[in-house]
C-alpha cells in the first residue's frame, strides 16, 4: 500500500503539491488525473523518492520512500521522457536494470521485446519516440517491482501498442503483486484500464475513489419539466454539479443516490426524463468546475 501523508512540495514560490493525502491499495490500477500543472508528475516524483517533499512523507508498504533503498526496490518509475545512456541498446539498458532491480526478469524482457518487434542490439537513439516508450514500459514491467509509476505512458504509443500495454498491465495485475499508478491527462486511456482514480487540481487532491463507485455516485440526467418553478425547485433539491438548458431540455449532472434522484425527478412530473452514462471526462469536468476550473472562464 502506498500512503501519501500531507505531502507539500514547493518550487520557489510555486506550491506544486499542497498537503496531499492519498492511499493507493495493492493490486489496483490507479489512474492519476488532473488539470494541467495540477502536480501529477510532481506527485509521482515524490512517490518515487526523486523529490524530497518540503512537508509530509510517502510510505511504500509502511516504509518511508525517501533515501530508502528497501522501499525503492518495490517501485519503478517510468518518466514522461525516458533516459537511455548514450549509444545504449535495449540490451544495455536491460543489463543495467538487472543490476539495479534484483527481481528483474531478463528472459521475460527478451521475450516481450521480440513480441513487440524491438531489436535488442539496435541503438536506442535510432528508435522512434513510440519504440523508446515501449522499451521503457518493458523495462518497468520486467523490473518485477510491486509498484510501477507511469507518467504519461501512453503518449506516443500507437493504438495497437496502447492496447498491448494495457493488456500487459492487466495481466501483471492478475498474475502477481502489481500496482501500476498511471498519471495521464488522457482520460479515455485511464478510464479503459484503471479501477481507481485520483483527481488532482492545483496541487491538492480532490478525491481518490474506485471508478465504478464514482460513476455510481454521479449522474447525468436529461429531462423536460413542464413548469419553470418546478424546475427551479428540482435544481435546489439536487446536489447539482453542472446544469445546462437548451430550449426546454434540461441537462443536469448531479451527485447522489440513483433511486433518490429518480424519485425527485418523478415528483416534478417530467414530460421526458433519462439518466445517461457518464464518461470520466464528464466527471472530471464537473468535479473541477465545482472548484472553479470552468471551461466557460477560459473562453473569451
Amino acid at each position, binding site marked *: 500500500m502506498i500512503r501519501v501523508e500531507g505531502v507539500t512540495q514547493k518550487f520557489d514560490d510555486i506550491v506544486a503539491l499542497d498537503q496531499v493525502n492519498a492511499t493507493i491499495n495493492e493490486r489496483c490500477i490507479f489512474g492519476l488525473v488532473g488539470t494541467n500543472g495540477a502536480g501529477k508528475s510532481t506527485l509521482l*516524483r515524490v512517490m518515487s*523518492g*526523486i523529490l*524530497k517533499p518540503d512537508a509530509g512523507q510517502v510510505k511504500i508498504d509502511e*516504509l518511508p520512500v525517501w533515501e530508502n*533503498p528497501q522501499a*525503492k526496490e518495490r517501485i519503478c518509475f517510468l518518466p514522461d521522457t525516458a533516459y537511455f545512456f548514450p549509444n545504449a541498446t535495449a540490451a544495455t539498458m536491460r543489463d543495467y536494470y538487472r543490476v539495479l532491480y*534484483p527481481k528483474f526478469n531478463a528472459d521475460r524482457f527478451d521475450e516481450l521485446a521480440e513480441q513487440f518487434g524491438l531489436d535488442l542490439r539496435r541503438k536506442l537513439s535510432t528508435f522512434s519516440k513510440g519504440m523508446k516508450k515501449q522499451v521503457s514500459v518493458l523495462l518497468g514491467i520486467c523490473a518485477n517491482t510491486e509498484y510501477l509509476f507511469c507518467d504519461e505512458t501512453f503518449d506516443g504509443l500507437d493504438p495497437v501498442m496502447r492496447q498491448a500495454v494495457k493488456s500487459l498491465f492487466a495481466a501483471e495485475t492478475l498474475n502477481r503483486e502489481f500496482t501500476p499508478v498511471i498519471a495521464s491527462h488522457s482520460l479515455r486511456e485511464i478510464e479503459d484500464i484503471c479501477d481507481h482514480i485520483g483527481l488532482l487540481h492545483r496541487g491538492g487532491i480532490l478525491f481518490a475513489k474506485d471508478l465504478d463507485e464514482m460513476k455510481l455516485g454521479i449522474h447525468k440526467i436529461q429531462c423536460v419539466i413542464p413548469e419553470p418553478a418546478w424546475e427551479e425547485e428540482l435544481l435546489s433539491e439536487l446536489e447539482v454539479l453542472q446544469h445546462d438548458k437548451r430550449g426546454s431540455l434540461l441537462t443536469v449532472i448531479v451527485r447522489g443516490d440513483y433511486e433518490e434522484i429518480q424519485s425527485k425527478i418523478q415528483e416534478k412530473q417530467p414530460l421526458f426524463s433519462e439518466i445517461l452514462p457518464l464518461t470520466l471526462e464528464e466527471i472530471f469536468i464537473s468535479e473541477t468546475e465545482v472548484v472553479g476550473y470552468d471551461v466557460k472562464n477560459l473562453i473569451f
Partner: protein
Amino acid sequence: MTSRISFSKLVRMEFRQQIWLAALQGLLYTLLLPFPALLGMSSELGTMANRGDRIDHFIWWASFSRDMGGLLALAAGVICALCAFAYLYSQTKVDLYHSLPVKRGQLFGAKYAASVLTFVLPFVAAQLLVLVVGLGYNGVTGAMAMEMAVLLVQQILFFLCSYSAVLVAVMLTGKLLTTICAVLVFFGYVPLFLLLAQAFADEFLYTAVGFSNMWSLNKATLKYSSPWAFCIFWGQGSGIENGRVGLTGSLPSVAGLCQLVALIVLLSLLSLALYRRRRSEVAGEALAFRKLEPVIKILLALPAALIAAIVALETFESSVWAVVFILLFGALACMLMEFIYRWDIRQSLHHWQHILFTAVAALAIFLGFRFDVFGYNSYLPDQDELQGMAVNSAWMGNRAILPGKETMSNQEWLDYLETDQVDIVYGLAENGVEIGDEGCLDDTIVKKIYVKYHLKNGKEVYRYYTVDEELYFDAMEKLCQDMECREKYLPVLQYTEDMVYRIYKTLYPNEIPVLYSSGDTGVEEDESNTGESELPETEDETSTENDTETGIGTSGEGDSGTFMENLVDTVMTVSGRLTGDAPLEIEVPRERIGEVLSAYQKDLRELPYRTIENAGSYLEMTLLVGHNTFQWSSSPLDGSFTNTIGLLLEIATESGL
C-alpha cells in the same frame, strides 16, 4: 535500510558508462609514455654503451615529465568530474538515477570510484607498457619501478584533488555553463583578489611596505588560493632530479603530502554533503542553492566594480571617472549575474537591491582608500608607545649583503636594523607623514626610506616614506656614531679575511683622489664612468653631493703624511696609464685580500655615512659562505675611500697594470 545492490556491480556499471573516457585517456597516455620511450630508446641505443647508461636514460623516459603529468592529471580530474556527474544538469537523467533503489551516498561513491578507475587503469596500463619497453632494452631496475609507483600515487592525488574540487562546483550549480564559471572562479578568485589588493595598495597606500612584489610576498597565499594552485606549487616543490622522482629522487615534503590528502578528503566530503542536500529539481538552474545567489553575485560584482575603478584611474587619472565606472560596471556585473541566474534578459534588474548594495559597498571601499579613512598613510604612533624603530633606504636592500644570508626583503632589513634610539628615527617618520604623497616640498631634495615601528604592545608596523634628504643623513650620522649600529648598516665591517674569496675593482680615473682634485689628468668628470647606472633610483636625486666629498682634501684630512706621499708616488706611477676614460681593472691577489679588507673597513669606519651611501662606484667582493657556496657583494667605494684606493693603486702598480 541498506541496499541489496552490490557496490562493486554498481561501480562496474558506472565504469561501463564512462569507458569512452578511459579509452581516450589510454590513447593519450600511450602516446605520451610508452610510445616516446620506445622511439627514444631505439634511436639512442647506439649512444648507450653499458647498462648503467641505459637505466639512466630509461628512467628519464619512464618518469614522465612531472609538470606535464601533473597538469594532465588535473585536467583529467576536471573532465572526469564533469562527465560523471553531468546527469545532475538534466531533469530526465535525474529522474532515472534518483529513482533507482540506491542511496545517494552509494551512487556518489560508485560514480567517484568509477571515475578514479577511468583515470588509473589507462595510466597504469601505459606505465606497464613502459616497463615492457624497458625490459626489452634491459633498462629496468626495481628502484625505477618504485619511482613509477610513486609517480602513480602523485598522479592519483592530483587527479583526486582536481576531481573533488570540480565536484564541489558541480554540486553548487545546475548547468554546465555555470559549473565552468564556478571552476574558473575557484581557480582565479583569490589571485584576482590579490591583484586588486595590490592595485589598490599601489594606488592609494603609498606608505605601504610589502606590496611591491606580489608574486614573492603572496606566494604562500597563492599556493592556497585553489586546489589546482596547491597541486602545481606542491609539484614544483617536490622537484625532479636527473629524471628521478619519488624515492630515489627528490621526494615531496611529507607535510605537503598530508595537506594534499587532507584537502582531497575535505573537498570530497564537502561535495558529498552538497550532493545529499542538493534537491533534484534544481537540474537546469544556474545555482543549486538559491540562497547563495545574492552572496555569489555580490562577491563577484564587487571586485568587478573595483577593478573598473582602477582601470578608470589608470586611464583617465580621475576619481570622478572611477566613481562613474564603479556605478556602471557594478550594475552591469549584477545584471550579468542575474541574467546567468535567470537566463532572461528582462529579469536583469530583478533584484535591484543587489545593484544598489554593490554600488554602495564598492563606493565605500574606493572612497575609503581614496581619502585614507582608516589613516593608514598618516599612521604615526606616540613616541611613548614605541619600544624600537628602524630606518633604511632602498640602498641597503640593493647593496648590503649579510654573509650567509639570502637576499633580504625590506622588512627583514628593518627587523635587523631595529634600534632603541627612537627619538632619532621618529623625527624622520614625522617628516614622512608630513610630506605624505606630495613627493617633494619646494626645492627640498627628498629620499625614499623604509621605517619600522615596534610598539611596546608587540605590534610591528612597517611604512615607506618620502623624507627630506638632509634630515635622513643627519639621522643616519647620529645612528652610525654608535659603531655597533654602523656595523649593521655596513655589513662589510663584519667580514673577516677568511670569508672573502675575491676582491675586484673597476677603477675609473675620477676615483683617484689626487688626480681628481688637481685635475692633472685632463679627464673631465663624467658621471657615466662612475657606474651611475648601477645606483638605486633614489641616488639620482642626490648625485650632486658626490662632487664635494670625493676630493682628498675633504676626506684625507686625518691621514698621515707618509701615506699621502706614498699615495701620490703611486698615483704618479700609474697616471700615465690612467688617461682618457679607460678604467683600470684591479684583481686583488689572494695574499693581499686581508690588507685591502682592513683598509676598506678603516674607510667605512671613518667616513661620514652620507659619503658612503652617496659613493658613485663599488668594490666587488666574492664571499665564501659555505662549502663551494659563494655570495657576491657590491660595496660603496669611490675617491673618498683614500685608504682603499691608495692600496688598490699600489696593487695595480705592483701587478704592472
